């Protein structure tokens, strides 16, 4: 196929066709309309008061009514349910913790919510924690947005995988479990650094370095949880590729340590070629041993969704769970054998299941699920055999990057 029939060029050219100038009538309509809109207060009524000014006393009255009704309900026999979680597809009933949580629902799940602020103006990535059944949700007051967070093994600290700051290279950060005492691990260097796992003793982190312009340092690293003692574990043989349409980082993405701390698992991303190297990138899940440069692939080549790297070791060390392929989750032995599907009863075959993580006792798995007709992904959990699917979140936002940790000490 010659360049003139390059489908990406044709798509780009087609998209470039069409009007590019806002009609003057629309421009005038906008500037005229703003005169009738009061900033902050919404639409101004003819007698000078905003609609919002009427809403406040109405809301107060409604709140009093709700409290009264709730009190009557709780005193009635109907108010004594001990349900531990909503069935799939139902909205979460309450933010209060269940009276008797099932043993396998113990612990807290940390996650990232997109479009977290009530209005469209705040940070669009919020960091939250909740009980494993979705109750007791709390937002952590963090100074940075992060692309994901992970509990330390004892639940006392959190790792912000990649802190996002305008104009700066990504760096990890650690904080106390309540979001206080944030410390950005600000290593010097013109590379992107992110971390994807705590060591089992909570003393070290599993990280990756990526620099599309100088890939000589790309690979998996480990460092102390205070940002010192950076040690290289792998050399990434597939560097990033910069195309005219997209830039593919092609990095090794760290995802977990083995429970005994002697091995690690990561996703190796291989970029496509041409103008759009992101379109065509593939990945493999690899397992390595600390102190050895050679790693082994445990998935078939061509694993198609490298943008969703996740592979987590079960607490008993017997399995590695991964997703990001289809409406199924998968487990595989750490040596790459015995790959099995986890038959989750997803609502449809269009569902896309990804970023799974084990519960602390290994009996359940939390994961993100994107349904074809929903705007954002939601968090679900399932028993490790695929039964007992429970929807955990149901807010009108996207939730992702679930990390299931023990209850904080």
């Amino acid at each position: 196929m010659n360049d003139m029939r390059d489908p990406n060029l044709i798509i780009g050219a087609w998209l470039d066709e069409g009007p590019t100038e806002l009609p003057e009538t629309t421009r005038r309509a906008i500037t005229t309309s703003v005169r009738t809109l009061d900033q902050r207060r919404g639409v101004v009524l003819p007698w000078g008061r905003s609609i919002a000014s009427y809403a406040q006393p109405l809301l107060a009255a409604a709140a009093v009514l709700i409290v009264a009704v709730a009190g009557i309900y709780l005193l009635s026999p109907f108010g004594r349910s001990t349900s531990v979680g909503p069935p799939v597809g139902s909205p979460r009933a309450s933010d209060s913790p269940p009276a008797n949580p099932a043993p396998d629902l113990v612990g807290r799940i940390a996650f990232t919510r997109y479009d977290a602020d009530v209005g469209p103006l705040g940070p669009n990535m919020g960091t939250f924690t909740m009980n494993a059944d979705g109750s007791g949700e709390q937002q952590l007051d963090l100074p940075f947005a992060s692309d994901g967070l992970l509990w330390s093994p004892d639940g006392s600290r959190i790792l912000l995988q990649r802190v996002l700051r305008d104009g700066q290279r990504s760096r990890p950060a650690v904080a106390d479990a309540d979001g206080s005492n944030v410390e950005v691990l600000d290593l010097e260097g013109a590379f992107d650094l992110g971390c994807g796992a705590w060591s089992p003793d909570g003393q070290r982190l599993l990280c990756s370095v990526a620099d599309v312009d100088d890939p000589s340092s790309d690979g998996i690293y480990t460092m102390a949880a205070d940002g010192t003692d950076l040690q290289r574990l792998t050399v990434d043989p597939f560097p990033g590729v910069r195309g005219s349409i997209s830039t593919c980082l092609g990095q090794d993405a760290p995802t977990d340590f083995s429970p005994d701390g002697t091995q690690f698992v990561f996703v190796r991303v291989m970029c496509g070629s041409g103008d759009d190297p992101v379109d065509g990138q593939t990945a493999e899940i690899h397992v390595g041993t600390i102190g050895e440069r050679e790693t082994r692939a445990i998935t078939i080549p061509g694993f198609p969704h490298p943008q969703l790297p996740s592979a987590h070791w079960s607490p008993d060390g017997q399995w590695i769970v991964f997703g990001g392929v289809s409406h199924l989750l998968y487990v595989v032995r750490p040596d790459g054998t015995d790959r099995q599907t986890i038959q989750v009863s997803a609502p449809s075959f269009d569902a896309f299941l990804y970023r799974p993580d084990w519960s602390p006792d290994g009996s359940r798995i939390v994961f993100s699920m994107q349904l074809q007709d929903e705007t954002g992904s939601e968090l679900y959990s399932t028993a490790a055999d695929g039964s007992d699917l429970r929807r955990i979140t149901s807010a009108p936002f996207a939730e992702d990057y679930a990390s299931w940790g023990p209850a904080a000490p």
Partner: protein
Amino acid sequence: MTVALVERARNGDEAAFAELVDLHGDRCYAIAYRILRDVERAQDAVQQAFLLCWRELPKLRDPERFGVWLHRLLVNACYEEYRRHKRWTTNIRALPLEGPEGPDSIASVADRHALEQAFRELTPEHRAVVVLHHHVGMPLATIAEVVGVPLGTVKSRLFHATRNLRTALGADSDIDVPEVRPA
């Protein structure tokens, strides 16, 4: 320049806001049209986005983020506009036989027809990612901020949408999903 205008506009300066509309209106309209494929709905979406922008502007904490924020309002307005008119209708704007870009255009009439059909099959969420990536040239991480979903979801949407469009052109997607067999 934009930052100074944003700061003035969020203090209620209507003239500054009008300048922001002048600065960003064309780009917003181009994006909205390409997502919605309809000139009137695109105008409505742009109008809604700018009116919400004016109303909420005082709450914008970082004027440097105005661009990303405005794009978010616009994309959300496009989603609403799409759902308000869920029954998709054809834009009856007549195209010259040789296409609007003349004989040198890379996309032939048949290509454009195929792409138009395939694009209509996409959800507005997928369309937005395609337009922001292929038309605006926005980095994927920025698109994730604009559309308010994880970066992985953006890439997934782009992957599927681009594959559908390429398929419509008769180009083989070489990224077939391999089947993972249970043991």
